[in-house]
């Protein structure tokens, strides 16, 4: 398909934007890993290494009025959707000023009122919540929006995934369900998770459209996600995207991923999408080495500033904490403790 000059310029801008989110996400993840090793983070640290292209490709195609339910490996998509780095850092460091105010941590963050849904840990559970937001928007007469829910291939084994995808199909909601098949669910390989030839084969059984994408291929990834999101936005109902990649880290930073065979790491699947993206941008003259260096140092400064700031910020104070899970003020007066 031929592109006009302005179209191809727009594509180039999107690619540059996506790359910058990938880079910022990678550096942010590296920082969290370092803080983890230094004992500065409580609980787990979960990285998106290898998944940045896919995740950024989602985020760059979303508008502020869209809905996004990222998962544990979506730092890049979160940034692309507009999450400020300080939100991520505050959540990991438990700052009282973060969006979760120390009540929840690490990847469990979001701002529901902004269409940015904070995951609960139970895999698959967020998809129907995205459906609900989309359903409500439709009831309110809002159209032209989409909702993206992210899952790993392991999460496709949950009942919640199935119920929600089917529900979206029945309601013909503008849901884009992105499955990152990164070959492992924690240590479990795909042959212990499903037996179909390709997870994209599931789409027909729900009556939804499907898209397969090699998520190590930077430009293809951006293009395909763009297409899937556009289909949903145009009213063609739910879109199932199945992306293939390899997790280039442990499940969490506590895990050395010794169970991933070297052959797999050395296969095309094991390519680092960030490197692929850099090569692509260089080749297409969308950035040069100097530009990369600037972006990198800008990102590092932004991250370091955020960390320094969050570390100075107050931790949540148990004595000021209200210790109630209820929104209704009048019911709080009745609450008892013992």
């Amino acid at each position, binding site marked *: 398909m031929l592109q006009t000059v302005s179209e191809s310029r727009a594509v180039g801008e999107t690619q540059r934007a996506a790359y910058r989110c990938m880079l910022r996400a990678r550096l942010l993840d590296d920082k969290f890993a370092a803080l983890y090793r230094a004992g500065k983070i409580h609980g787990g640290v979960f990285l998106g290494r290898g998944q940045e292209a896919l995740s950024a490709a989602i985020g760059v195609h979303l508008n502020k009025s869209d809905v996004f339910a990222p998962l544990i490996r979506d730092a890049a998509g979160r940034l692309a959707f507009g999450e400020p780095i300080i939100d991520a850092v505050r959540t990991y460091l438990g700052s009282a000023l973060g*969006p979760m105010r120390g009540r929840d941590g690490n990847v469990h963050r979001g701002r529901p009122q902004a269409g940015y849904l*904070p995951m609960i840990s139970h895999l698959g559970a967020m998809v129907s*919540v995205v459906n*609900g937001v989309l359903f409500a928007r439709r009831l309110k007469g809002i159209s032209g929006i989409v909702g993206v829910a992210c899952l790993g291939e392991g999460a496709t084994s949950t009942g*919640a995934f199935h119920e929600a995808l089917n529900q979206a199909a029945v309601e013909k909601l503008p849901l884009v369900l992105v499955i990152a098949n990164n070959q492992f669910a924690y240590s479990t390989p795909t042959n212990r998770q499903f037996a179909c030839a390709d997870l994209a084969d599931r789409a027909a059984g729900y009556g939804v459209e499907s898209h397969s994408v090699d998520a190590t291929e930077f430009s293809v990834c951006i293009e395909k996600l763009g297409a899937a999101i556009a289909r949903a936005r145009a009213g063609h109902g739910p879109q199932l995207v199945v992306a293939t990649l390899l997790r280039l880290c442990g499940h969490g930073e506590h895990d050395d991923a010794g169970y991933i065979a070297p052959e797999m790491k050395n296969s095309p699947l094991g390519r680092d999408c960030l490197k692929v993206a850099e090569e692509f941008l260089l080749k297409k003259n969308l950035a040069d080495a100097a530009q990369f260096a600037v972006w990198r140092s800008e990102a590092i400064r932004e991250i370091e500033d955020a960390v320094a700031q969050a570390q100075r910020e107050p931790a949540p104070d148990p004595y000021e904490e209200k210790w109630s*899970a*209820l929104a209704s003020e009048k019911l709080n007066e009745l609450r008892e403790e013992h």
Partner: protein
Amino acid sequence: MSITYLDAIREAQAHALRDDPRVFIYGQDVGAFGGAFKATKNLQKEFPGRVFDSPISEDAMIGLAVGAAIEGLRPIVEMQFADFSSVAFNQIVNQAATLFWRTQVPCPITVRLPFGGTSGGGPFHSQTPETIYAHYPGLIVLTPATVEDAYSMLLEAVAIDDPVIFCEHKFLYRHLKAEKLPTEALPIGKARIAREGRDLTVVAYSAMVQDAKEAATELAAEGWEIEVVDLRSVKPLDTDTIIASVARTGKLLAVGEAWPWGGVTAEVISRVTSEGFGLLDAPPQRLNAKDTPVPYHPNLWAAHRPTVRSIAAAARKILRH
């Protein structure tokens, strides 16, 4: 004209749909069919585009409701039977119940649970899961015992900013009748003295309130004056009203249709003894169902749960202490 408990539930939903454009109803067969118990009869016709049949996907039903609540709507979800909420358990306790606390965004959903035993219902159409929901932080659990409360509490449930588990007793659906719908009501979280007395406080909720009142009538013939407290809401639980009653009577029996381990009766006894120990002049007692699934056969069923007779017997034992 007389109005049943079931009518009241239908009317409250009609009222909510009429008054509040944010309200919609979602559940299996709730549309043209009007629901398995007809609690949404004609609502789809009266309120086009506001009442939706769902697939048999309880987990996703609650998920969708939470998403809609995030957008500011006020969904009412009907579970076909309370028993089937077990497959929505995760979305209720981990998604809906934690949302406000985690994000400060309220989650005003109402989950209607047709619950409780009826003869012939058996192990999977009779359950009373109020305890498991009350145990989790972030949920309001309501158990109306009268036609009036079924109406006004459901209206309040929809208005409340928190997720509400609304336990409607299937036996009361057609059994309880009132002359008219109420125009005022006690606030959520307040218990009600369903019958006054000074010899013994019987705390009950949902269908057991009726049985407790009948037992009180039976005991009145023997000269005892039994006070019956209708909890109305099991979470929050109105300890003050219970303790004030025990202060008058000195004696306490807590009655529940649920299983004996944990649950409402344990919570009631435990609160009263912690906070009002000195008021008691006899050991407080509980009466619950037996610790087995709910039996199908009417003979077993009647013996499994508290009855007017067993409540009266338990009361007599305390009174003679």
